[in-house]
C-alpha cells in the first residue's frame, strides 16, 4: 500500500494554561543554560582552590565555593548540560529499545510479542533505580554506561505504553484497510501506526526525562554515575552533603535546580498527555 499515512488528529483543547507555560519557561531556560551557560560563566567548574573551600556566596562567586574550593555556579551550569545530556540520551535509548522492540514484536505476532514482553515484564518487576544501580555496578562508571543503564532501566516503561497504543490502533479500520491492501505488518506499523501513536510516546518520553534526571542524580550520589570530579547535579549533591553544615549553599544549589527542572518536565508532560492523547475525548 502506498500514499500518505492515515493520521488521527489529536484532541484539541483549550489554551495551554499557566502551568504549561511555566513548565515551558523552566525547560527553555534550562536548555539555554545547558547550551550557552558554560561559555557565559567565566569560572572553570573543575578548578580547585582548597584554601577557599566552602566559602559562602560573594560578588565574584554568586553561589559560593564547594568543599574543594570550586565555583558552585560554574559546576551547576556545567552540570545542567551533563544531567540533561544523560537524561536525554537515556530517554532516546528507552524509546528506541522499548518502543522499537515492543512495537516490532507486537507487529510480528503473538509469539514474538510474548517473548519480548516476557523479558520486559521481568525487567519491569525490578524498580528502575535498583535495575540502574545493578547495571552500573556491572558496566562501570562513566557517561556511556550511565546512559545505557538508564536507557535499559526505562525501556520497559516505554514498551508497555507502545504496546497499549499499538493494540488500540490495531483495532482501527485504517490498520485493517492497510493490511487488506497487502501491506506487511512491519510496513503498516511504521507507515501508519507510528505516526498515530507518536503523541503517546512523546508524552511518555516527557514523563521519563525527569525520572532519568533524578535517577542519574541518585546513581551519582551513590558514586555510580559519572566520575567524581564531573559536575553532574547528583555528584554535586553527593560531594556537598558531607559539608552541608559548613556550606549549605553548595548542596542547596543542585537540589533546587533538580526540583525546578523536574517540576518543569512534570508540568509540560502533564499537558502533553492531555493534548496528545487522541482517545481521551472518546473516554470522556
Amino acid at each position, binding site marked *: 500500500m502506498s500514499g500518505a499515512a492515515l493520521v488521527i488528529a489529536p484532541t484539541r483543547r483549550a489554551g495551554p494554561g499557566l502551568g504549561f507555560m511555566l513548565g515551558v519557561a523552566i525547560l527553555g531556560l534550562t536548555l539555554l543554560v545547558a547550551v550557552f551557560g558554560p561559555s557565559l560563566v567565566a569560572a572553570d567548574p573543575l578548578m580547585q582552590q*582548597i584554601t577557599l573551600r566552602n566559602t559562602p556566596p560573594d560578588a565574584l562567586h554568586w553561589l559560593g565555593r564547594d*568543599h*574543594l574550593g570550586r565555583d558552585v555556579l560554574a559546576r551547576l551550569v556545567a552540570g545542567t548540560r551533563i544531567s540533561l545530556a544523560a537524561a536525554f540520551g537515556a530517554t532516546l535509548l528507552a524509546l528506541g529499545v522499548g518502543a522499537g522492540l515492543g512495537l516490532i514484536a507486537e507487529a510480528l505476532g503473538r509469539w514474538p510479542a510474548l517473548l519480548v514482553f516476557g523479558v520486559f515484564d521481568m525487567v519491569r518487576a525490578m524498580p528502575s533505580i535498583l535495575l540502574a544501580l545493578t547495571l552500573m555496578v556491572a558496566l562501570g*562508571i562513566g557517561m556511556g554506561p550511565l546512559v545505557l543503564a538508564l536507557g535499559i532501566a526505562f525501556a520497559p516503561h516505554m514498551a508497555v505504553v507502545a504496546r497499549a497504543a499499538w493494540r488500540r490502533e490495531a483495532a482501527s479500520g485504517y490498520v485493517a484497510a492497510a493490511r487488506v491492501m497487502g501491506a506487511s505488518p512491519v510496513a503498516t506499523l511504521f507507515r501508519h501506526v507510528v505516526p498515530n501513536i507518536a503523541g503517546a510516546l512523546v508524552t511518555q518520553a516527557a514523563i521519563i526525562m525527569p525520572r532519568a534526571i533524578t535517577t542519574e542524580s541518585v546513581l551519582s550520589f551513590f*558514586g555510580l554515575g559519572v566520575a*567524581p*570530579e564531573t559536575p553532574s547535579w547528583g555528584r554535586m549533591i553527593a560531594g556537598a552533603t558531607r559539608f552541608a553544615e559548613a556550606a549549605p549553599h553548595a548542596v542547596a544549589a543542585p537540589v533546587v535546580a533538580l526540583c525546578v527542572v523536574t517540576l518543569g518536565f512534570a508540568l509540560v508532560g502533564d499537558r502533553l498527555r492531555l493534548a496528545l492523547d487522541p482517545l481521551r475525548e472518546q473516554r470522556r
Partner: protein
Amino acid sequence: MTHAMTPSRRGLLGGGGALAALGLLAHVPGVGAAQAADAAPRAGKLKVAFLGLDTADPHRHTGSIAVQQVYVETLTSIADDGTVKPFLATGWEISPDGKRYSFTIREGVRFHNGRLLTAGDIRANAMRVRDQVRGGWLSAPMKLVESLEAPDDRTFVMTMKEPYGPLLNLLSELWIVAPESDGWAQTVRTPIGTGPFRFGRWQPNVTFEAPAFADYWQPGLPHVEAVEFSLRDIDDLSLPLRAGDLHIARVGYDKLESVRADENLEVQFMKDTTWWFWSFNNRNPRSPFNDVRVRQAVAYMLDKPAFMRFVAGQAGVVTNQMAAPGQFFWDKAMHDADRHARPNHDRARALLQEAGVDPAKTPCRIVSWQNSYSEIAVEAMRNLGFQVEHLALDDIGAQRRLGQYDWDLAPFASGPRADIFLRFIRLMSDGPNVGLWGGTRDPEFDRLVHQAIAVVDLNERRRLYLAAWQRVLDNYYTVVIGHAPEPIVNRREVTGYAPGFTWGQHRVDGGLAFAKLTARS
C-alpha cells in the same frame, strides 16, 4: 636478651616522640590500675562503631582487627607508644643470634569455656596459622619458622630459620583461640578466646554483641556488661554519636569542628598515624610514566600542605616518609631534603618538556577509592595538561582494578600498623595487597628490607630501612604526602577509654575493657 614487663628501646624511641609533639598522648590505664580496680559491678552496654568484622575466624581475617580483638588475645600487645608489651606472655627471652624466642605464658588465664590456657594452646594456634592460613601479615614470618615447641605448660618456644626483627610486634596479631572452638579444622565459627568479652551474637554487616567474660584474668575488667559493635557502613558516625545512639566511634576529620562544638563529645586520636600517598604503576608502567622525570613532574604538582589541610585539618603533617615525623624510623635529613614539600608547577612543566612529553596527547588513568582527596590528584594531572580518566571505585573494585596494572596513578591512604615493617612489606615484590603501592618490584629494595629485619641492632635496622626508602624516593615508586592520626570520638559519659596505637580495641593496658559508663545515655 631478656624482656619481662619492660618496654624495648625501640619502643621508647618509636612513636612516642612524634605523638608527644602532637600533644596526642592520652591517659593510659595500666595493668596495675586494673588490678587495683574497684569491685563495682559491671554496668551498661557500650555501643561502638569502628570498622567491620569480615569473619568469625581470627586467623583468617582480612579486614579490621577492631572488633575481634575484644574476644581473642595475643602473646604481645602494642602499647600507646608503639612498644611491645607482654600480654598472654609475661615475658620472653631471645637468643643472641636472634632466632630463638622463648615465651613464658601467663598463669591463671582462662578461655571462655573455663579451661586454663597452656603453652600447648599457643603452639596449636601458631601451627594452625603456619600450616593452614595463606596470606596476611603473619604469612611471611611463618614461612621462616623452623620449629614450634611447648616443653611445658608455661613455656612456648618459637625458633626461626633466620633472625626476624618485627616478630614480637607481629605476634600482637596472632590471636589465640581454644583448639576446641567450633570449626577449628576448617574455619572457626564460634571462637573461644581469652578476651574480656565473649563472642556473642553476630549479624554480618549489621551488629556484633560481645557480653562480658566473668572470669577474665585481669581483675575487675571489663567494666561494662557488654559491648555492641555497629557494623553498618555508615558514612557519618558523628550523627549517631551526637544523638546518643553510639558511645564511641571513628569520625572523619571533616566532622571534627561540629563534634568539638558538642559539649557531650570528646575527641581523641589514635597513637599511630594514617598516611596519604600517590603511587605510580611500578609493575607495568606505561609510557611516559615509566620516565622518572615525568614522575618527578607529577610530584611537583602536589601541594602537600594544602592536601594535608584538606584531609586532616590541623592534625595533618607533611613529610616524604612512611614513618611519621618524630618516630624512630623517620629521618629528619631525608625530610628536609624533600623537593616536593611545596608545589612547583613551572618545574613540573619544564620536566615534561625535557622528557619530550606532550600531556595534551597523553592519557592518564587514575584509580582511586570514592573520596574527595582523589579529586585533588585528578585536578593536579589535569592542570599539568594530561587527558585524565578517573576510575573511582569501591574497596573491592579498586583492589581488583589495581591488580590489573593498566593504570598510571593511584592516590590512596593507609592506616596504623603494629610495626613499620608492615608498611615496608607493601613495597616488597612478594608483599601482600601491593596494588595500592603500584606493585613495586625492586630486588635491591627487597634485599635492604630483608637485611633490616634480620639485624638485631635497632640503629642498623633503621639505617637499612632508610636506605631502602631512599630507593623509593629516587625512583618515585610512591610519593608520600603526609600523616595524621585518626580521630576517635567518645561521649562524655564514657570514662577510662583511650584509643591505642592500632585499630585493635583491646590491649594489655587499655581499650574497651577499661571503659566505664558513668551515666546511661
